């Protein structure tokens, strides 16, 4: 019993130390957030070289990744630099492995948000190497694999993503980590959706909605949104509108303006799919304007191509040509990827002569979507039929 007591005391000393370090780090990390990037050229003060300081930086990186992924990357890299500078054996296993792995995970996630997918995958590899240095980090390791599956899906490596998701689901379930289990289901559904396996996507989404925690409104909204889009693909229009409106209401409550506009976009696409072209034109015009007001030029451009589709279907080809010209100028003015400008220039020119305008729009839209994660991809016109 004495041995247990000794171990317990050792454990309590470690947690008291880590808690104290985090408390002490809070002020310094807050000051760092307000400072410039010059800190990279400074020496790391010895009082920063603690696990608590690294945890605090990693936690800031996590908090800001949605709003400022580049800054998040800086914080996560700084966390890693400091973790590297902590002398070996300072902490018992698995503390050092966990803080390094967590820093790498945030580095990977920040890269994912800025569409640097190769860098994200490398970071996730390093996170796994770090976690592998301890025995007791199976849950952290499964969460990194979930993040990896998201990147693989973005890269259209769907089968690899599905395989990975199937492997980690039972591990997360064992830990009763419901939040991540729901995310696994959500991701699996997204992959099915991208593969056109809409029935399987619907089944996964319905199961995920039955498992999502009551207070997790954002995940519930995202699941409802995708379910709406899935119903739309299955031709269950009424259910699609119901779900999309429900998702929209939740996102309005959460104050997520960008996501509300994305849901409006899904609603407009469902209207377009249902064949109400006049209404779709009206909705897509509003969506485009809202994206532009939010400075989301990429999304505004893609919504513009959907609008071009609706205009062509509504026999307003001249308006469609004029719209593509406008989108092209927006891309030039915003200095977006020059390859996107090339593709839009091609579309502007080809719409004057092609007997298949919808095919041309679809080709350029697919290219622009791919360009988001393959910024060096060269544009080629569609093969002639």
């Amino acid at each position, binding site marked *: 019993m004495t041995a247990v007591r000794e171990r317990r005391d*050792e*454990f309590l000393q470690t947690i008291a130390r880590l808690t104290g370090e985090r408390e002490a780090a809070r002020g310094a990390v807050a000051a760092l957030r307000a400072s410039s990037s010059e800190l990279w050229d400074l020496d790391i003060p010895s009082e920063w070289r603690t696990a608590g300081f690294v945890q605090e930086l990693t936690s800031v990186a996590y908090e800001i990744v949605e709003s400022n992924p580049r800054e998040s990357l800086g914080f996560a*890299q700084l966390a890693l630099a400091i973790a*590297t500078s902590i002398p070996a054996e300072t902490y018992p296993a698995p503390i050092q492995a966990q803080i390094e792995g967590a820093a790498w995970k945030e580095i990977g996630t920040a890269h994912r948000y800025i569409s640097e997918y190769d*860098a994200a995958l490398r970071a996730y590899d390093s996170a796994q190497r770090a976690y592998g240095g301890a025995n*007791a*980090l199976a849950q952290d390791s499964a969460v990194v694999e979930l993040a990896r599956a998201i990147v693989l899906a973005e890269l259209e490596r769907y089968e690899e993503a599905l395989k990975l998701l199937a492997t980690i689901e039972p591990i997360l379930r064992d*830990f009763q980590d419901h939040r991540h289990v729901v995310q696994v289901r959500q991701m699996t559904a997204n992959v099915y959706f991208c593969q056109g396996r809409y029935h399987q996507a619907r089944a996964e989404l319905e199961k995920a909605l039955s498992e999502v925690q009551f207070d997790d409104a954002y995940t519930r909204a995202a699941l409802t949104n995708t379910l709406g889009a899935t119903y739309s693909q299955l031709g269950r229009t009424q259910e699609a509108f119901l779900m999309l409106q429900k998702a929209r209401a939740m996102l309005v409550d959460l104050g997520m303006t960008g996501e509300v506009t994305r849901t409006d976009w899904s609603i407009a696409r469902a209207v377009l799919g249902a064949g109400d072209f006049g209404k779709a034109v009206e909705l897509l015009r509003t969506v485009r304007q809202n994206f532009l007001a939010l400075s989301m030029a990429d999304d505004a451009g893609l919504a513009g191509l959907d609008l071009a589709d609706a205009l062509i279907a509504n026999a307003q080809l001249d308006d469609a040509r004029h719209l593509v010209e406008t989108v092209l100028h927006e891309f030039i003015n915003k200095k977006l990827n020059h390859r996107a400008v090339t593709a839009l220039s091609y579309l502007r020119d080809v719409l004057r002569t092609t007997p298949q305008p919808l095919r041309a729009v679809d080709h350029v839209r697919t290219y622009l979507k791919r360009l988001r994660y393959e910024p060096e991809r060269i544009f080629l016109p569609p093969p002639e039929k």
Partner: protein
Amino acid sequence: MTAAVHTATALDERTDDFGAIYEENYQLLVRTAVKHYHISELDAEALAHEVFLAYFLKAHEVINSRAWLISAICNATKYFLRKRARHVSLPSESGEIPDPSLERVNDALPDRLAAREAFECVTAKCQIALRLRYLEGYSVPEVAAELNTSPKYAQKLISRCLRQAKNRYRKRGEP
């Protein structure tokens, strides 16, 4: 002063909670590892201790502590056994044969320790650049991608950081 007292109280309460969880579950975790995976009690105790530390790092998001701890000990033991299975036992006469990797240990060990210490005394940017290049095995273009710069600059940075590490380490040793 009041804030400091509050913080100290909160820390004490938190420590008490973790202490209770440790005492309530320690034997259960050790028994689970020994009974289900047939590892020695000594190994099981070390694993259980590791699991409690991992639990502390995750406690804010754990809903059911006992379920989490049991799952963690099972996964930790399986991982421990997988790692151990990779070990190959040496032939009995190996005790007489010197390990070739230790042939220059008297020279190599101080070098390795010095490299680690030299690593510790460079700037944050150099820490990350040297870690990526020499610990994670990133190529120069991969280091460049990580640091959002050109491969040419990344190469220069790595060379500069190596020089910095060397100079600072040398200065450290000077009286």
